[in-house]
């Protein structure tokens, strides 16, 4: 039987960028158009099959925006990776990438960071171009991908990449 390993990972990003929706897509493969603000944290579990072990990802979906600073350390501590998300239709959500990356690294220096620009399906409303996204993400030490929780575009890829980069 394969080894089972549990690891805590976080979703970080401003409110309404689609963190909850990305988790829902990845774990339950569904999407909801309605917006229900998260407060506190919701933890979901999803096993990811790796070559010689099963990685149980415990995904911490945290309240976005300025609530994060209050919730702070106890939520983020002990997590080995973070998916940091912005909303491609709202420029200001990209400005927070550095903030979340630094918070994560301050508490977990070796954490794996992956950056996602969500709502890629809203092409005509997109205001952030890929060049800026890649550049900022690389400068903060992580890879970047476009995602859409709505269509499922690259959601699996993002989490798979995260899982692959986690050393066990």
């Amino acid at each position, binding site marked *: 039987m394969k080894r089972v390993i*549990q690891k805590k990972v976080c979703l970080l990003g401003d409110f*309404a960028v689609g963190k909850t929706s990305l988790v829902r897509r990845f774990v339950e493969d569904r999407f909801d158009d309605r*917006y229900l*603000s998260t*407060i506190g*944290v919701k933890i979901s579990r999803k096993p990811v099959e790796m070559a010689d072990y099963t990685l149980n990802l415990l995904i911490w979906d945290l309240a976005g*925006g300025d609530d994060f600073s209050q919730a702070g350390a*106890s939520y983020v501590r*002990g997590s080995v990776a973070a998916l940091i998300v912005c909303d491609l239709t709202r420029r200001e959500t990209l400005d927070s990438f550095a903030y979340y990356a630094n918070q994560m690294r301050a508490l977990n220096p070796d954490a794996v960071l992956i950056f996602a620009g969500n709502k890629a399906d809203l092409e005509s409303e997109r205001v952030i171009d890929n060049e800026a996204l890649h550049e900022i993400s690389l400068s903060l030490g992580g890879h970047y991908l476009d995602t859409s929780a709505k269509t499922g575009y690259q959601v699996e890829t993002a989490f798979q990449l995260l899982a692959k980069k986690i050393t066990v």
Partner: protein
Amino acid sequence: MSVPPADFDPIMLAAHAARAMSQAHRMAYAHLAPDLTIVQTSSNFPFLLESQTGQIIGLPVTEILWEFVGAEAALHDILRGEIPLLRLEQVNRGQGEAMLYLNFQVTPLDAFQPDRGLLLLVEDETAYGRLQQTLVQDRNELRLLKRKLTSANDELRRLNRLKSLFLSMSAHDLRAPLTSIGGYASLLLEIMSDAPADTLKYLGIILSQSEQMNRIISDFLDLDKLEQGLLSLHLESCDLNQIIARVSAAMQVVADSRQIAIALALPSPPLYIWADPDKLYRIIYNLVSNAVKYTPRNGRVHIEARQSDEQITLQVSDNGHGMSEEQLGNLFQLYYRTENAKKSKTKGTGLGLYIVKMLVEAHQGHISVASKPGAGSIFTVTLPRQLPDNV
């Protein structure tokens, strides 16, 4: 005062108190061994955590509560006495209506010997959590709406700029041929003065209609500038009598053709006013041409100017159809034309009075109208003689 004998020893009392409190506050607790396995729990512990039932004693806490995966280091820090507690607030459990908000807190069982084991307290704060969720939801939705509004406004502004650009370009393109039409019509009138009366009449119509069209174009351009707050006044001292006389002369042909008399009551010596002469001309022209337009044959239009210490009053009155209360209320609105105006054969854009009002207000003035159906209308414009410095 005598103290009744104690029925319970202090430990029993504490146990009863703990049970009462855990019921009142929906709390559950568990005892964790130093190796982080569960030693024992309160009876409501599996119940409060809903999905977690069955045999849990002896299992690592991280298998029962995912919340503690990744927190092992922190729990060991507590056992070593390095940190006093670990607290996780508003942990969401379950879905939709059935969702609970739980607080988790881990402290040493014995504060003086933290390495003996840990006390895990679970507190159900769903009622408070739901309340806070509603607040956060409202706040976030408001922020998103505000954002949408801002970007919709930006888009509107962009479209408006585009419209202005289009308007001024097409106005420019229209004016060039119009100038030729008007110019050649008046040239023909000059050199064909002995042509048949009908020919001269038709040429006259071409000329006056091209002038009319020119004025409509100016109206559109002015309106655009007014709406964008870009209208600038070129102020100078203007002879009001002279401007009124020019307007009256320009309207004479139309008035004559319908046997309408234009009567002037101007003071002497002439009135001087600090204003933009072109705009002042437009104000008076629009009022007089309206009066002439909506006055039936053989009617009368009266223009009067007078001054007091501070202000100049200009009145344009007619004995035309007049207007109802409802019509008066809407008169100065953009694109409003009264029922009479719509029925009458005269053409208009519905811009004239709106522009008059805007121009009067740009001069810090005021316009009002008095009218009754069948009893004609009186338009009264008051303008300050001297504009304040900041205009």
